[in-house]
């Protein structure tokens, strides 16, 4: 069956492509309209639910203090994650020289664009006050991983848009030339704008190809950065289960894995809907399936590598998290993910009997759903773990609001994809034509696969900036002794003297009864303070027994300068009134025991990192904008010939 299709592609490919690309622009079928209406209703319901949540607070979505991060952040991670599928199928395979990708690239890039937009939109329901989002720009904290999430997502979205739009320039020009009447007025105007000046000259094609390759090179580390920074929003806090060094690569692989699965589903859906069997064949599904299989195996391995160290050491937090996954509160979901999300898809693709379109599509459905479940488990379980009591609070409860909003997001992806490819061609006409030409020629027989090694991670780290206060000026002046006041009564008398020697003050009390020293009584010393109820507050300095001469003395370090009253008391009768002696005293030299916290190690490194990252982001934007401008310029009047 598939071989027949491939033959037909080889013989009358070019004509076929343009015809196939025009199919979505014809009058939509009843089925198409029905699906569109259903999806629109689901999206509208989600918007209604979100409006309700905005009015009532996030409590109605099931959030509590023991599930402060839950379904929406999992949606953000899962949906932005699947957008990496577009990058892998399109950019990585482009750089790897895998020309079989041709019929899939437009679908993959469109999926990447739509999912990153929908995924980023889930940040809104995740926030308590989305109305203040502008604060992320006008008074941002560059030390925050969430800030870099925003930067990374914005940059990646822009790159995805450029990567999607650049190859459309020749395609829209082709369709304009071939079927100007069938396009309709709106599309015609749009296509004229997009392909303005494109004549397909050698120079134009060279510029476009070079620009596309550069964007493809840029988009891969950008996608790595997005999923890494998303992971660091979790890993940069000290919570068990999140604070894992493996999380950034773990998220990247998860994104690739679920992303390839979604590309398979989108390809299958549009293949069936628009009868693209001649272009997207079983061999495409099998190859994507193989990629998915290897990523699935890698994800399985990383899951094991994530859990083993926590479980082995036995520290209470991480152990409880692993126990919760294997046997505890989220065990059912975790095993469902493990079996349905990694083992079953691998088996379905590995076995030759199920390695067909249906088997691979089922495997992809399992992967997409199971990977969403995995994200929810990862977020909800740790969020519910109380690090003070070392126990789990109430885990997240799904409510109709959060389910409706999440379903609306999923529906929005399908809806936007259907609308996007009713507006723009769903096949990359130029790529498919090139592929058909090359397959018709003799090159295939002698072809050797070229593997790209352009995949590398961009080093984007959430910066840690520590602001340490520096205080501590200590006045140094000369010492000045003070005289004690003297009282005369028949009761024991306490006379106090205070002497300052640098910051060290020595206070001495003489206890006498009728002029004779009193030995062995406990004298308490106090110093007045200006703190906490000034004028009336006495700080105990300590107690000392009198010696044979009736004297008791203690030495202390003055913390602050200023006038002080020193008081010495002793109780001649238990529970009776104390005998008190006081003296006024000017403290001129003091040493506070307080010393400011020294700046944390690596504090300045964090600042340097943040500034470096700003530079990197600026360079990326410059590169991307430059590619657009280059292609546009090549279409300028001077270059048209």
């Amino acid at each position, binding site marked *: 069956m598939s071989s027949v299709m491939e033959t037909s592609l080889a013989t009358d490919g070019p004509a076929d492509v343009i015809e196939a690309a025009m199919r979505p622009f014809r009058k939509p079928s009843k089925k198409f309209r029905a699906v569109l209406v259903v999806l629109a209703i689901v999206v509208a319901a989600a918007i209604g639910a979100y409006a309700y949540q905005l009015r009532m607070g996030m409590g109605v979505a099931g959030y509590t203090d023991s599930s402060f991060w839950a379904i929406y952040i999992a949606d953000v991670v899962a949906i932005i994650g699947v957008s990496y599928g577009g990058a892998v199928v399109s950019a990585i395979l482009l750089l790897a020289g895998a020309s079989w990708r041709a019929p899939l690239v437009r679908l993959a890039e469109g999926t990447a664009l739509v999912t990153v937009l929908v995924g980023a939109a889930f940040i809104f329901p995740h926030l308590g006050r989305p109305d203040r989002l502008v604060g992320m720009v006008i008074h941002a904290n560059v*030390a925050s991983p969430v800030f870099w999430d925003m930067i990374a997502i914005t940059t990646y979205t822009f790159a995805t848009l450029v990567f999607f739009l650049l190859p459309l320039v020749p395609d829209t020009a082709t369709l304009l030339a071939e079927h100007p009447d069938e396009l309709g007025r709106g599309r015609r105007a749009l296509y004229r704008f997009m392909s303005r000046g494109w004549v397909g000259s050698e120079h134009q094609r060279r510029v476009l190809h070079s620009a596309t390759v550069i964007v493809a090179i840029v988009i891969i580390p950008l996608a790595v950065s997005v999923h890494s920074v998303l992971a660091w929003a979790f890993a940069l806090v000290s919570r068990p289960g999140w604070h894992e060094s493996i999380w950034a690569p773990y998220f990247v692989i998860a994104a690739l894995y679920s992303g390839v699965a979604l590309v398979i589903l989108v390809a299958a859906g549009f293949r069936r809907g628009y009868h693209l069997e001649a272009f997207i064949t079983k061999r495409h599904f099998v190859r994507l399936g193989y*990629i998915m299989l290897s990523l699935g195996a890698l994800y399985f391995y990383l899951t094991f590598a994530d859990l083993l160290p926590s479980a082995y050491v036995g520290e209470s937090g991480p152990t409880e998290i692993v126990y919760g996954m294997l046997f505890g509160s989220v065990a059912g979901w975790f095993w469902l993910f493990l079996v349905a999300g990694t083992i079953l898809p691998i088996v379905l693709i590995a076995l030759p009997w199920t390695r067909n379109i249906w088997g691979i599509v089922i495997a992809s459905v399992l992967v997409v759903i199971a990977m969403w479940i995995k994200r929810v488990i990862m977020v909800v379980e740790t969020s519910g773990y109380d690090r003070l009591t070392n126990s789990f609070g109430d885990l997240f409860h799904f409510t109709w609001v959060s389910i409706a909003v999440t379903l609306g997001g999923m529906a929005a992806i399908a809806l936007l994809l259907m609308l996007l490819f009713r507006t723009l061609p769903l096949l990359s006409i130029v790529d498919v034509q090139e592929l058909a030409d090359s397959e018709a020629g003799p090159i*295939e027989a002698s072809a050797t696969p*070229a593997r790209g090694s352009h995949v590398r991670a961009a080093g984007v780290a959430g910066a840690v900036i520590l602001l340490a206060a520096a205080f501590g000026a200590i006045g140094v002046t000369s010492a000045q002794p003070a005289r004690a006041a003297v009282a005369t009564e028949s009761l024991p008398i306490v006379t106090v003297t205070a002497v300052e020697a640098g910051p060290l003050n020595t206070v001495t009390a003489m206890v006498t009864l009728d002029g004779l020293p009193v030995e062995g009584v406990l004298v308490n010393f106090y110093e007045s303070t200006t703190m906490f109820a000034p004028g009336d507050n006495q*700080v105990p300095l300590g107690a000392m027994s009198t010696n044979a001469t009736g004297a008791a003395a203690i030495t202390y370090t003055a913390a602050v300068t200023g006038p002080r009253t020193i008081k010495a008391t002793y109780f001649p009768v238990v529970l009776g009134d104390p005998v008190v002696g006081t003296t006024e005293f000017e403290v001129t030299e003091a040493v506070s025991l307080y010393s400011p916290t020294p700046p944390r190690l690596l504090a300045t490194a964090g600042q340097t990192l943040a500034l470096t990252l700003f530079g990197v982001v600026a360079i990326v934007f410059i590169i991307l904008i430059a590619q657009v401008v280059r292609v546009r310029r090549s279409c300028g009047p001077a270059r048209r010939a």
Partner: protein
Amino acid sequence: MTSLFGIGRHQEAPVDFGLSPEAEELDQSRRNLLRGLGLAGVATAAGALGLIAYRDEAQAAVAAGASGQEHQWCRVVDLRACKGERKCVAACQTRHGLPPEQTWMRTLSWHDEAGEEFFMPVMCQMCQDPPCLNVCPVSATIKTDQGVILVDQDQCIGSRACMAACPYEARYFNWNAPAPTNKMPEQSPNTLQFPANQIGTVGKCVLCADRIPYSSDLPACVEACPRGAHFIGDLITDVAVNGQSTVRLSTFLREGNAVRFKEELGTNPRCYYIPGNGQPVGGPLEGVR
């Protein structure tokens, strides 16, 4: 031949770095373009520097009128005195108009082998290296000159990154509409020191910072504790009070073998716990050496 990544060699060189006249011209246009865009890059970097300066300005604004050289506030909780009456919690709830499920102060309890119950009040530890401050994307958490950590509820976007980061679980979220400020016993002026709770924002212990320098009123929890377990102190003047007695802070901490909670996390908390459970409290009147 049918490898994972491809069956055919790519027809064109992936990137054309050749120096044909065509390419040279291409290269020139690229360079002109980059020159223009370079200026945009400089502007971006300048903007980045501005962003980094924001937090300093915000902190300076709060610290205006009070110097960190005069006071550095801290807390001491004398666990020997705590009997789990939770009057501190109640006083805090009342003063800040908090719903029952949102407590800025919790009193944890444990049972030992003999069945005796231990208590430990936990609230914002006023870390000097606060993880919550670092992760806030909008600089809504600030550290004042006097070492108090506050949340600007007018800036908070409710990302709850601080809740994730706080190792003391000391932050709480206004999931639903909070009680209006006029229902609070003492109407909140909605300042950083005495915030009016707003839906969709994070709240936490503010050390009743509106009462700084605590010369007439102490924090609500300190005033409420009938057993004098809660102290408010100043590290500079080395004094702490619990509303009943005054202690020399450094001596009190040393004599009581004071510890800080989760010291190993490097947060440098400004809350000291005197360990113990129901032992006779060595009051300052008995003297220290």
